[in-house]
């Protein structure tokens, strides 16, 4: 990132310069493309299993589109989280954070640039998922709703996970701690999807499903794609992901203002 200091100082906002460098590192020299290859293989296996099952009825085919989209959104979110969780703590662990902090840009701008690079993983993941959604959904007329609902839900969840990952990474002393906390948090957010349906129908369970951005987002996708409900009818399920995204991004920007060389050093 030392070369970034030369670029910052031009008329471009500093965060765009940082984001540009991070994007180049991620996609030309880093792990962006290998992650996309693995992600595409996962979607290929899922799609082939669905397409080779001749016993699927119409509704099950819609469920297959929903399943593929949910896998795409969930794994895309996981990639964003991995990218964000490593962003600051990784630099700290590799002893490159000091040179990054010397860049003439505010700390929030540095974190914002890194968050944009992490978000690019979701954008790429969504672009990779689109051909699979088109193939599986064209016969049952759900391509448009799948693409649009997937973009909305996936982007909200990716923003939330980018904020959560950046917040954790900024405060964590080591990369291992940052990744552990992030993955544990992600597992905890997935847990309500496994609740028995009886618990989900109780008001506490229903509230939890609405509040948890993952369960709410995935429920929205299922209702729109499988049941054919309109976006407006299910819009209440987007409140949880929206609030979570705003809170997580705000927390990440607040923590970024306190970014220091060492996690415990607040001087």
């Amino acid at each position, binding site marked *: 990132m030392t070369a970034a200091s030369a670029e910052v100082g031009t008329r471009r906002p500093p965060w765009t310069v940082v984001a540009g460098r991070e994007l180049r590192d991620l*996609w*030309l*020299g880093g792990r962006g*493309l*290998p992650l*996309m*290859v693995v992600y*595409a*293989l996962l*979607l*290929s*296996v899922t*799609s*082939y299993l*669905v*397409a*080779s*099952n*001749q*016993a*699927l*009825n*119409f*509704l*099950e*085919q819609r469920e297959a589109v929903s399943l593929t989209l949910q896998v795409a959104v969930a794994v895309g979110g996981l990639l964003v989280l991995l990218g964000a969780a490593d962003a600051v703590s990784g630099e700290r662990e590799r002893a490159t954070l000091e040179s990054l902090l010397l860049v003439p840009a505010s700390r929030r701008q540095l974190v914002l640039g890194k968050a944009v690079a992490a978000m690019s993983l979701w954008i790429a993941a969504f672009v*990779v998922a689109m*051909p*699979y959604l088109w*193939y*599986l959904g*064209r*016969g*049952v*007329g759900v391509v448009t709703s799948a693409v649009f609902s997937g973009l909305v839900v996936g982007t909200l969840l990716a923003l939330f996970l980018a904020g959560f990952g950046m917040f954790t990474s900024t405060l964590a002393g080591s990369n291992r701690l940052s990744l552990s906390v992030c993955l544990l948090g992600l597992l905890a957010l997935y847990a309500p999807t496994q609740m028995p349906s009886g618990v989900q129908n109780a008001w506490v369970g229903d509230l939890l499903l609405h509040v948890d951005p993952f369960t709410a987002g995935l429920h929205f996708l299922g209702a729109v794609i499988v049941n054919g409900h309109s976006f407006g009818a299910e819009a209440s399920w987007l409140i949880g992901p929206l609030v979570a995204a705003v809170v997580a991004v705000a927390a990440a920007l607040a923590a970024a203002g306190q970014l220091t060389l060492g996690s415990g050093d607040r001087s």
Partner: protein
Amino acid sequence: MRGWIAGLIFLLLVIAAATPAAATRDLAPASSAASGLSVTNDQNALSTRIGERFSFTSTVRNDSRMDRPGVVAHLDVVTLDPDVYVDPEDWSSQRTEFLGTVPAAGLTRIDWKVQAVNSGDFVLFVSLTTLEGTDRVTTSSALRVTIASQQTLNAGGILPLVLGLPAGLLALMLGAAVHRRRRLHQVR
């Protein structure tokens, strides 16, 4: 001559017996003499395509002189193909209607909304029972539904996608690695 006329009458009787039921007979109410309840459907056959939604109306009549409380109507789907599995829940999420009381000499109508989720030949029918008082179940005549299939998925068709996309990304990754290595050599 008399034998010829007798033969003709016999032939007419055979033809009459072999003729498929007329629509009026298909729509005739199925009624339970004991309860006086009957149910009819407004259609007896329809054709559609897989994935399409269709609806039909059942009319529940109470031909007795007494009110019938706690009447329950239930829609069911039967496949005529032994190789097709039908989950009626997939066809209609609202298959049981609690109609309450059907007044004496009165009627109640039910609109059923159904989605064709399997292809083939099916029979839909409506059963009636009451919450209390009788163990009798009354059923409607059959609504015969023919659903045309539509091939939307095949394992062969998706192969170029499931192999091509990861292969393309792999090639892109290798290209980026080669490009990076060349630049490193140039810098050195």
